[in-house]
């Protein structure tokens, strides 16, 4: 789904910098993510992709610069407030509740959306709406048959699917996925692409991805991050034709 000319900006990074001590990891990134688009950030290892995600999602506060989510500044807010503002993220290293059931993993997020975050006076089993919505997400990520199993017992690709499911549960309109297909086989990757495509329908997606195949088949636009700087943002086709990008990152692989 290509962005129409009238679309708004869902997420805007304005001159973001981030330093760890004397080392500047993010060097003034400007980036507009349009509402409803699927956008990938690519770049060589150590370019700062994960740091960028951590800044947007509130793990760290940027050293300088501003981040706007639907026009509201979110830079430096704590993660839970950013999530409540409408942004959810997944993690590169699977980050789930290993000792809880798959169903419960998802329900934690659904409960947060329903505003019963610290509910102490009603059994959760009786919350029909919550449980129905959880079952729905469970079905959407294709884990219906695994609902009662421990999350820690799932296969790797199932855990990745759960990871994506968890980012959907809080109802955020802006989804950040950090290398959702990393470590998957060809076949698993195909499935994951389909999953991401369907579940992000109507939402805004920003993802870090190494696999160019995934980027091409999924994303409307691509930004290239090299050494903490975005050197180009464009459609996948034009990015792969971009000389500077080829030199900096894609190398022979893309040229061939």
């Amino acid at each position, binding site marked *: 789904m290509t962005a129409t000319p009238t679309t708004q900006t869902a997420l805007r990074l304005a001159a973001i910098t981030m330093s760890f001590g004397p080392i500047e990891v993010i060097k003034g990134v400007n980036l507009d993510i349009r509402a409803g688009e699927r956008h990938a950030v690519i770049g060589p290892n150590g370019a700062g992709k994960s740091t960028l995600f951590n800044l947007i*999602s509130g793990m760290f506060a940027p050293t300088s610069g501003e981040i706007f989510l639907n026009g509201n500044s979110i830079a430096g807010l*704590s*993660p*839970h407030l950013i*999530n*409540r503002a409408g942004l*959810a*993220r997944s*993690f590169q290293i699977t*980050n*789930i*509740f*290993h*000792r*809880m*059931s798959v169903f*419960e993993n998802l*329900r*934690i*997020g659904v*409960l*947060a*959306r329903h505003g*019963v*975050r*610290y*509910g*102490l*006076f*009603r*059994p*959760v*089993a009786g*919350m029909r709406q*919550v449980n129905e919505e959880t079952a729905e997400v469970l079905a959407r990520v294709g884990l219906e048959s695994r609902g*009662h*199993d*421990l999350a*820690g*017992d799932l296969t790797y690709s199932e855990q990745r699917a759960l990871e994506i499911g*968890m980012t959907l*549960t*809080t109802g955020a309109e802006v989804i950040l996925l950090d290398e959702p297909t990393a470590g998957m086989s060809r076949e698993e990757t195909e499935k994951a692409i389909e999953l991401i495509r369907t579940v992000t329908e109507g939402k805004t997606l920003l993802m870090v991805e190494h696999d160019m195949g995934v980027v091409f088949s999924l994303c409307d636009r691509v930004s290239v991050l090299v050494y903490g700087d975005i050197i180009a943002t464009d459609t996948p086709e034009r990015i792969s034709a971009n000389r500077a990008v080829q030199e900096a990152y894609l190398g022979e692989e893309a040229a061939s």
Partner: protein
Amino acid sequence: MMTMRNLLLLAVALALLVIVPPFLGLGWQNMLVNVLIASLFALAFNLLIGQAGLLSFGHAAYFGVGAFAALHLMRAIEGGLPFPTPLVPLAGAAAGLLIGLIAGYFATMRSGVYFALVTLAIAELFHSLAPQLEGVFGGESGISSMRMPWNGIVFGSMLEVYYLTLAWVLVCGLALWAYTRTPFGRLTLALRDNEQRVRFLGYSAHTAKVIIFTVSAMLTAVAGSLQAISIETANYSLFASNVSAQVVLQTFVGGSTVFFGPVIGATAFTLFSFLVSDLTRSWVFYQGLIFVLVMLYVPTGIGGVIQHHIHNRRQLDWRNMAGHYVLAFVGALLLTAGVVFLTETVAVLFGEDYAMVRHNAEGGLPPFELFGASWNPTGLLTWLLPIVLLIGGGALLIRARRRISTIWDRKGPSNATATEPLLAGGAK
């Protein structure tokens, strides 16, 4: 899920707790009161470590706060305040809530070892300040009061105190159990598993942990006030580190991963200390030994092992295993006998009484009495017996354990569910 069978079991236990005590002696009634209080204390403590994964080393602080708050209210009642005596633990709950909120706010700013150290420091703060504060804690001697009659109930007998304690412990225990079924109860488990992810799902981890800490402190304080009602006095030693230590021991031996585990530990320890503390001075040593052995070999505690067996009962070849379990039990028994014999022998030989005997015997090694027999300190049998017990019991236990674990490995797929943490079974 609460199955019919569990419900029935609970009802039977409840009936026993209500019906039996009037037929018991005063000592046993008193012991049961202590069991109930220790159980509630351990359950409340386990809300932190077992469910939220927060290890508090200073829960004596909230136990003590509850006791002192209750005594202050009891003194006011003595002075004429028209307040029903059975509701005195409410004062403890209120004080525990307040102190827990403040302490919890700060303690939960840290995690892991640092959290443990903050809680330890808070308890030590109470312990070192209490003897100096005459007004609140009654100085070094503490404060005392009397249970005042209410509505015709005199609260003069231990049995009345027992029923009062039972009612409060049941209500609080049920509340804690219901807690695990609420959205917040599930969030508590999520926090233990992965605090970071919880934050990215829109929850403030700090707020959540403060609430958990406060609930735990509040119910701990209720346990403290029940003790105050039962013994009608309290002093600063309630804040001592050994009070905090005791609940850690009971909880982990009973099993912190199972809801009722802490009750098992609290009951076992209180019961044993009631039974054997008159017989031996080495009781605390045995406690420490049991705790370390549990930590080393059965980290899920007694409750964890029981639960593990119940969950796998259909997959296990019981007929084949029963014999090995009996052997293991016999081995453990022999081993225990050996350890106890050795410990008690050493305790006698190095004890003051024996030093007097030796003094009278002019430095010789006269025989000593133990377990109703006379033993010669230089006799072969005295030392051979425990060694044979230790080696024989140990060999038996190791052999049986190995057999049992092969049978466990052969069983069908586990029907583990999410409520059961996947940890090494009893035989692993």
